[in-house]
């Protein structure tokens, strides 16, 4: 066992503990700087991991004579690294968002920053998990941190209520997940994902394994907000502080998908048939439910919650390709490629949208707070437009290619079964419906005058955005546009990360 293998997680935990220690000696007005410090440390970690990944290898070379990329239940491959980069980027943006949001948080800031780092540690470990113990512990580290983060505004009823609802449903889902893992353990006698690829000793064991696998998928389905397990999403997204909602929408979901991808990769052919059917049904129901419920929402965070459910459905389409029989024409790599590209675009778009949301006044986040935004702050209006159009999946932005690749991979997997083409009809229908609700947001920005009677549009003063946030917003907008037009660089980089699934 080599400690350097876990260096990223160790650095994250130490940064979180360090922030808590520094908090003791920091005067009240200096607390915000701790957020900048945390974001700075995570940026260093991200830069080191992107540009000098050999540092970790180097240490393991020194101590053991050969490069180690695997430990018990843990694997540091290109796939894990890509997800770790995504999570680090999300955490940095969330920390900076939280610093600007600090006035509304009205609570102990240092603990907030530390909890974000602890949740990040869980996500980072989840990206590397190769057995059920790592899966469970990392998922729980994420969820327990999020219980506290969700109810962080203790003075506000809705934040507390969201926390309670998330806790009860989340804990029940975790218990179901553990029960499923117990059944899988009973059937295979092992905790490794790889054991799912081997034949069971008897038919009874096989039934146990199938039941356990379904329960595990249900438990993870809660984290990614797939259809029958999505009831918590709208309430929790609405009640949680905006930076937490953003982190929940991106980080928690991506971690669940990373785990599902690893899990499905190891399944043996007859189990793949089962999961293909189950996941196809989940994907269709999720897209339909998310899209239809988003239509009548007027609260922005709730709207993004339902839109997030729909995008979980699209991501499940990519997961279908992973469950194709080995040797089929679209290999699992294609579906993974699409999912990872879509997640990157989704991350940037969601972070940009929520950063804009943090700078709007009005506690209730009704669509009417957007009225006249293009006059009050052209920058916020432009970035929000770009991010919403990207989420809707219109060219030339990043979201378009992501959605296109997902639909394409699912279409190729499903083409041998004409009966399952209804799924494509549902998916395309979801895209069309999404245009309607996303353009509701655009309508509120540009043509939304006079919706709120108390404050007619145009009369409100301009919104001032701090310089750092302005820089980040411009960067997010440019990335959405640039990668959307020239996706080759990112797609090639992803080629290494999905080599595992070929």
């Amino acid at each position, binding site marked *: 066992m080599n400690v350097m293998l876990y260096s990223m997680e160790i650095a994250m935990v130490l940064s979180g503990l360090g922030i808590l220690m520094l908090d003791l000696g920091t005067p009240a007005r200096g607390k915000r700087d701790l957020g900048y410090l945390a974001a700075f440390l995570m940026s260093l970690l991200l830069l080191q991991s992107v540009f000098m990944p050999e540092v970790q290898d180097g240490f393991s070379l020194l101590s053991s004579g050969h490069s180690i990329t695997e430990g018990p239940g843990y694997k540091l491959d290109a796939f894990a690294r890509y997800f770790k980069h995504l999570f680090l980027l999300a955490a940095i943006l969330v920390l900076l968002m939280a610093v600007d949001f600090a006035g509304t948080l009205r609570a102990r800031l240092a603990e907030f920053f530390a909890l974000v780092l602890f949740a990040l540690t869980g996500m980072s470990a989840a990206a590397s998990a190769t057995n*059920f*113990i790592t899966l*469970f*512990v990392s998922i*729980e580290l994420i969820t*327990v941190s999020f*219980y*506290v983060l969700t*109810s962080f505004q*203790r003075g506000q*009823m*809705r934040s*507390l*209520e*969201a*926390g*309670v*609802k998330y*806790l*009860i449903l989340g*804990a*029940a889902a*975790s*218990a*179901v997940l*553990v*029960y499923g*893992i*117990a*059944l899988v*353990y*009973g059937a295979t*006698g*092992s*905790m490794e994902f790889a054991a799912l690829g081997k034949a069971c000793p008897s038919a009874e064991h096989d039934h146990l394994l199938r039941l356990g696998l379904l329960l595990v998928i249900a438990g993870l389905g809660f984290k990614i907000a797939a259809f029958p397990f999505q009831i918590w999403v*709208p*309430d929790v997204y*609405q*009640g949680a502080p905006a930076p937490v909602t953003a982190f929940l929408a991106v980080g928690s979901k991506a971690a669940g998908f990373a785990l599902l991808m690893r899990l499905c990769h190891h399944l043996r052919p007859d189990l793949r048939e089962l999961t293909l059917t189950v996941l196809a049904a989940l994907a269709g129901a999720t897209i339909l439910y998310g899209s239809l419920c988003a239509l*009548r*929402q*007027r*609260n922005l965070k709730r709207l993004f919650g339902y839109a997030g459910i729909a995008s979980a459905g699209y991501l499940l389409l990519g997961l279908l390709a992973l469950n194709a029989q080995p040797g089929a024409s679209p290999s699992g790599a294609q579906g993974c490629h699409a999912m990872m590209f879509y997640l990157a675009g989704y991350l940037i778009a969601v972070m940009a949208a929520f950063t804009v949301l943090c700078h709007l006044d009005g506690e209730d986040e009704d669509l009417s707070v957007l009225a006249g935004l293009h006059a009050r702050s052209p920058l916020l209006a432009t970035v929000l437009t770009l991010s919403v159009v990207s989420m809707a999946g219109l060219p030339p932005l990043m979201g378009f290619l992501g959605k296109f690749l997902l639909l394409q991979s699912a279409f190729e997997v499903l083409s041998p079964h004409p009966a399952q083409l209804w799924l494509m009809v549902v998916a395309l229908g979801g895209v069309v419906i999404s245009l309607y609700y996303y353009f509701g947001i655009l309508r509120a920005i540009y043509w939304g005058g006079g919706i709120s009677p108390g404050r007619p549009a145009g009369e409100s003063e301009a919104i001032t955005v701090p310089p750092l946030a302005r820089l980040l917003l411009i960067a997010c907008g440019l990335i959405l546009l640039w990668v959307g037009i020239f996706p080759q660089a990112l797609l090639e980089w992803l080629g290494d990360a999905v080599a595992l699934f070929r």
Partner: protein
Amino acid sequence: MTLNHYLVLSAILLGIGLLGVLTRRNIIVVLFSIEILFNAANLNFIAFWRFGPNPEALMGPMFALFAIAVAAAEVAVGLALVIAVYRHFKTVDLEKLDTLREP
């Protein structure tokens, strides 16, 4: 006692726990039910390990220990939340927490 006895007992515990989570309205009772759910799974781990092909590998009890620790963390956060909720709402009834809902 065979493996099946333990599995049936654990399935009964799972049923009781799920019923409690779904039907009870007192947050504290719901937290109890979640504990029962976790213990149903833990019982399974121990039974599968004890009657499994290689009881020398301590995988089952090890996972049960992890699950107990995590359940304790969850309940700690849960009880803290219950106290905060009681201060604001003056109740621990889940039905009364309804400020967030569909418009």
